[in-house]
């Protein structure tokens, strides 16, 4: 295989790339000029659609198609750039914004032109302090150079761009949750339809795109749809910024065509180069926590939008891999996953609010050494009864919550059973009493029942 020429990350190591001058010297804003001066908005949408650019935020929805859903007779259009990156294990947006902020801004300008946007909001999570200062500085420079504001590049196209900072909520990464949060309300996802393309921020037609999606637009406009499609696999075109973390030798970001195998990402010489201290691999969560887990045997799974589903995963997600070492206690991993969703559920839909809470309580009980074999069945059953797929929730957060729980319990069931059988007798009763004294001291939860559970 010929060595892949980086696209998104080509300027990451260039000295001073955060400044506009250096970015322009490296070919920056050429694509935006090409789009604004020589192409009509429809042509830009056609090109991006032809390139089969699938959204990089997790769901993999084609970006060009999303833009084409906007009503034709609209007066005002808003663009939201989703930089609320909170998926555990994911940091490709952070890397894109801190290493090459202008690339993302150029992408926002192109997407804004294609959708005839009047105002673009970059919704950035508040924990990105350094990235905020970097991006705001870059935005000021771009404003001063006339890439944002009135009459951009003398073409008569006007668009404003603002950075809006979030306040620490995972659910605001969901597109309608983001919109509600932007309007100054609780980040509660809206019932769809109406979809944001028809009624979004301030009840105006709105497009929400991920940072990486916009960064890809720049290169599609510059080098054409056919070039973009020649990278990656037929269903999943283009380059992708893979990220990897956990106890590997070189954690970090690696750019590769879509369709990289998980094993290559962990062990490849160009990638993470294997595990620290020669540890074994127990499993790998390949695309941000919500997609589910791959076992050591399944590591040859190709990470693109379609293939991962064959392994019982939700999707590609954000391609942020977390490697679980062989010496990790799977019960702790389960508890950590469950705690995340219990904390971040917005509380709007009952089955998600209660379900994530119960999953955490059960997982915590198992992790504390008070598990029961039937808890595993209980978790599996719970995971069948939450989310958009059974049609019970407004947003996809509970779907993301059940996949890791379900796959961890299914794929590591043997280990769970072994751990549960090895628990000290009587420990369960003691832990449960400590966790919830009042409930478990009721006569109906007597010692005999608990002792029998172990």
């Amino acid at each position: 295989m010929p060595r892949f020429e980086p696209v998104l990350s080509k300027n990451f190591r260039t000295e001073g790339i955060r400044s506009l001058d250096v970015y322009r010297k490296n070919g920056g804003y050429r694509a935006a000029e090409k789009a604004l001066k020589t192409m009509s908005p429809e042509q830009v949408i056609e090109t991006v659609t032809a390139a089969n650019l699938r959204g990089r935020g997790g769901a993999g929805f084609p970006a060009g198609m999303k833009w084409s859903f906007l009503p034709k007779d609209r007066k005002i259009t808003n663009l939201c750039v989703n930089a609320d990156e909170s998926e555990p294990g994911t940091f490709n947006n952070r890397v894109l914004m801190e290493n090459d902020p202008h690339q993302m801004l150029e992408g926002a300008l192109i997407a804004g032109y294609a959708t005839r946007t009047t105002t673009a909001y970059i919704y950035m999570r508040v924990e990105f302090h350094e990235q905020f200062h970097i991006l705001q500085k870059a935005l000021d420079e771009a404003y001063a150079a006339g890439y944002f504001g009135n009459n951009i590049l003398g073409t008569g196209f006007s668009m404003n761009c603002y950075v809006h900072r979030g306040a620490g909520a995972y659910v605001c990464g969901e597109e309608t949750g983001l919109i509600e949060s932007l309007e100054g309300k609780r980040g509660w996802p809206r019932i769809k339809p109406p979809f944001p393309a028809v009624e979004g921020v301030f009840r105006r037609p709105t497009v929400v795109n991920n940072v990486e999606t916009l960064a890809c637009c720049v290169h599609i406009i510059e080098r054409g749809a056919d070039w973009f499609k020649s990278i990656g696999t037929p269903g999943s075109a283009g380059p992708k910024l893979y990220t990897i973390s956990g106890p590997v030798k070189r954690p970090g970001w690696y750019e590769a065509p879509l369709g990289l195998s998980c094993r290559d990402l962990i062990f490849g010489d160009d990638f993470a180069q294997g595990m620290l201290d020669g540890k074994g691999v127990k499993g790998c969560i390949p695309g941000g926590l919500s997609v589910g887990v791959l076992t050591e045997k399944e590591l040859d799974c190709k990470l693109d939008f379609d293939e991962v589903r064959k392994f019982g995963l939700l999707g590609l997600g954000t391609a942020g891999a977390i490697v679980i070492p062989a010496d990790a206690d799977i019960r702790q991993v389960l508890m950590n996953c469950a705690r995340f969703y219990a904390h971040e559920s917005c509380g709007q839909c009952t089955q998600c609010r209660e379900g994530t809470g119960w999953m955490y309580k059960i997982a915590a009980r198992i992790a504390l050494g008070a598990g029961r074999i039937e808890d595993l069945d209980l978790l599996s059953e719970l995971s069948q009864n939450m989310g958009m797929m059974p049609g019970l929730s407004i947003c996809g957060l509970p779907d993301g919550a059940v996949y890791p729980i379900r796959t961890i319990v299914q794929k590591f069931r043997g280990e769970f059973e072994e751990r549960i059988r090895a628990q000290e007798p009587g420990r369960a009763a003691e832990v449960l009493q400590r966790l919830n004294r009042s409930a478990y001291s009721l006569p109906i939860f007597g010692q005999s029942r608990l002792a029998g559970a172990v």
Partner: protein
Amino acid sequence: MAWEALDRRTAVIEKDAPAVLNEAVREKIRSFFPRYETKRAALLPALHVVQDALGHVDWQAMREIAEVLELKPAEVFDTISFYTHFWTHDKGKKVITLCRSLSCQLMGADAVKAAIEKQLGIGEHETAADGQYSFVTEECLAACDHAPCLLMNEKLHRRVKADDIAKMLADPNNDRLDLPRSDLFDAPKPPASTSESNPNPEP
């Protein structure tokens, strides 16, 4: 967690408390109005501005924000109670935010947490007696390649080791961020057009 309220003290509401927001802070909040179509949308920026100025957003501040944004105080409280970033009671001078998500846990965040708690003598969601530090844990900080990581106010500390915690906490400059800051953060530009007309019509 929807069913468990962390870090909330029952507030004492003073009916006739003196105003806490000065004119400069109010003006700064108003400067965000041109960015959005509704005044309510300036609420998150307003809360950030007030928290930066006062350290936390108490009941009186909420009431005054509501006044500036032409909202009901309850609407401000509705929003503020959803987000973990805002403090409704006073916090330490520096807030330590430790990541507790999977990558960091696998790389030893539990040991770092224990070291911080031992060093400061406080638990999670508590403030040290001298008012220097508050300690919270948060879900993923999106810096998993540098796990375990923590935020000291705005500064991200990467690959923190439990053994280095004492040294880190003793360093007075442990929250210094040497990045150029934008002047425009406080003074956004007015929009191209505030009217209903479309500046980018169908060609």
